[in-house]
């Protein structure tokens, strides 16, 4: 298993000052740039430590929010491409359907791939609903734009013998020729995220690495949709390396300390959904059939415990978050056992996206959390033998 350490780089000092929304409309007067600078340097120190500990690194971006200061993820990638030596650098993700100019995206990511000497993983994502207000892209066309941007970026990265022409529905260029050329051939690995079985199948057909977040012990259903898509196109079962899962991780020498850390990191879950309701579901972000169900008050639950109980990630106590596979928390032995049980549920999960820092966790606690994990959990996860892919596929058909 690979493990990617991830932090949203939150501006937590303002979290208690919101009046109903930490996103979109939360005034940036609440952000003291001196405090922000200190936090950024701290977070990049922790990423450099991650590199030294032998773990990989994940970055993301959100906009107009105190929950995540990384609003231009290419900046973080650029810093870490130079300041780290060996970690893979996963951007998950790059909201390419929102970008006005995918040529610029291709140039940015190619440059990162070269400076890092081929350590980039490219996660292309739709983006959560709250991002629409910031980009003002039409939510109805977002996925069409996403796929056209995706096609364009890959073509730009794999064309090496002069310019090409592009006159699509959303983007127009006549002389495309990206410098520098990408390091990894034919292009850096593509990742994406989803919570929908329909999209999971599409990602399976393409063979991209698929990540889910907060799906807990409901993850298998989405992975199985991916498996169906994958086998239809590739004629065999996808390996565990095609699956990723974002989980919160709090490990400590004893259970009490781990739970204390778990509660602090869970500050991410407590604050992430605090957003003024009109921005939660812009028109066209979901299909009309799904919206009609929501208007009737029928919203499908997202997070299940191992026993099939539905929980709310925002309000659930620590024990429920652990039962749901949202938080992996305890001594190194306990965390290892929880992760293995989760992999077995998934039928294989080869990439843990580990939120080893979140919420109010201090620098010292983060350093200790990451170091202990790297020393006592990670070596065992690397040695862990994932469930047989074909056996996992066989249970889908059955």
């Amino acid at each position, binding site marked *: 298993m690979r493990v990617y350490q991830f932090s949203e780089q939150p501006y937590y000092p303002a979290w208690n000052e919101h009046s109903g929304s930490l996103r979109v409309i939360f005034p940036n007067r609440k952000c003291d740039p001196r405090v922000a600078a200190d936090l950024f340097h701290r977070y990049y120190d922790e990423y450099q430590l991650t590199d030294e500990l032998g773990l990989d690194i994940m970055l993301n971006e959100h906009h107009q929010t105190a929950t995540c200061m990384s609003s231009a993820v290419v900046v973080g990638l650029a810093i870490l491409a130079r300041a780290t030596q060996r970690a893979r650098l996963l951007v998950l993700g790059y909201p390419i359907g929102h970008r006005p100019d995918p040529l610029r995206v291709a140039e940015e990511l190619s440059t990162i791939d070269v400076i890092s000497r081929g350590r980039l993983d490219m996660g292309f994502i739709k983006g959560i609903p709250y991002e629409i*207000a910031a980009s*003002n892209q039409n939510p109805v066309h977002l996925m069409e734009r996403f796929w056209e941007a995706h096609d364009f970026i890959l073509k730009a990265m794999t064309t090496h013998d002069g310019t090409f022409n592009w006159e699509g529905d959303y983007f127009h260029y006549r002389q495309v020729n990206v410098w520098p050329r990408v390091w990894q051939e034919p292009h850096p690995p593509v990742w994406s995220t989803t919570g929908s079985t329909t999209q999971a199948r599409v990602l399976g057909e393409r063979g991209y690495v698929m990540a889910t977040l907060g799906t807990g012990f409901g993850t298998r259903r989405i992975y199985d949709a991916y498996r169906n898509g994958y086998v239809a196109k590739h004629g065999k079962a996808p390996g565990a390396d095609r699956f990723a899962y974002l989980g919160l991780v709090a490990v400590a020498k004893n259970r009490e300390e781990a739970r204390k850390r778990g509660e602090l990191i869970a500050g991410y879950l407590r604050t992430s959904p605090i957003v003024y309701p009109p921005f939660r579901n812009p028109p066209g972000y979901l299909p*009309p059939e799904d*919206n*009609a169900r929501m208007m009737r*008050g029928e919203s499908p639950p997202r997070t299940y415990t191992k026993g099939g109980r539905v929980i709310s990630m925002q309000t659930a106590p620590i024990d429920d978050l652990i039962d749901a596979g949202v938080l992996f928390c305890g001594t190194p032995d306990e965390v290892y056992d929880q992760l293995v049980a989760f992999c077995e549920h998934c039928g294989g999960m080869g990439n843990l996206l580990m939120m080893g820092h979140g919420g109010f966790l201090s620098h010292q606690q983060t350093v200790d959390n990451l170091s202990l994990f790297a020393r006592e959990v990670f070596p065992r996860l690397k040695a862990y033998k994932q469930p047989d892919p074909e056996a996992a596929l066989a249970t889908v058909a059955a």
Partner: protein
Amino acid sequence: MSRAAESVPSGKPSGLTVAGARIDLIERGEGKPLLFLHPENGIDPSLPAIDELARRAHVVAPTHPGFGRSDLPKGMRTIDDMSYFYLDLLDQLALRDVAVVGVSLGAWIAAEIAVKTTAQLSQLVMANAVGVKVSDRETRDIADIFAVTEPDYLEMVYCDPAIGRRDYKTLPDAVVLAAARAREATARFAWSPYFHNPALNRRLHRIRIPTLFLWGAHDRMLSEAYGRAYCAMIPGARFELIERAGHFPHEEQPKIFAEKVMNFVACK
């Protein structure tokens, strides 16, 4: 008349296929043809305003592409596209001397039709119309309806918000789905530029048929000043307020709305 209409009794919409897309169409009444173009919240066949208009006119009220049960033709993305669709519809139904009556987004469509040609049109009625930008770039002419809660939205667009309230838990599936489709279709056509076409201002001078702006006086999505500025861009257009009505005056004051429309259409 070359039309592919399925005749359905008892006031239900019939179907019509235009340019390969099937849309719902209400046809009611006799006499002068009147094309009613519904606003962004869709059209309900039981709307009293349609019956009021149908007392004195032959009302043709389509459900716009992408709204209700109407198909969305491939590639249709703008109100400009939509206006060509309706020019095709006018040709297909062989309508002549038509009064076009639009409310809000429907009035925007009407304006986009009329700047292209008024050859088949007799009069234009624009009720609480969107479609143009009148202020500077940092002044929002049209309130951001996608950035407010449902109760705040109803306060914004109705004089009496109770008229717009719906309990979706008790309504038929088709009605709930139509509401969801209306919200999506509105965003499709009006997300950015927001509820306007920046080029329309410069084209409105081409409208040389009698034009009436009707304005629900309690509209808080659009100001009366916006309506008057828009009206001033169309040569000779008149402006009349409808009291005790908001953004959808045909819903809140159907009798007065229809009376003003018919008085205008009859005395050209």
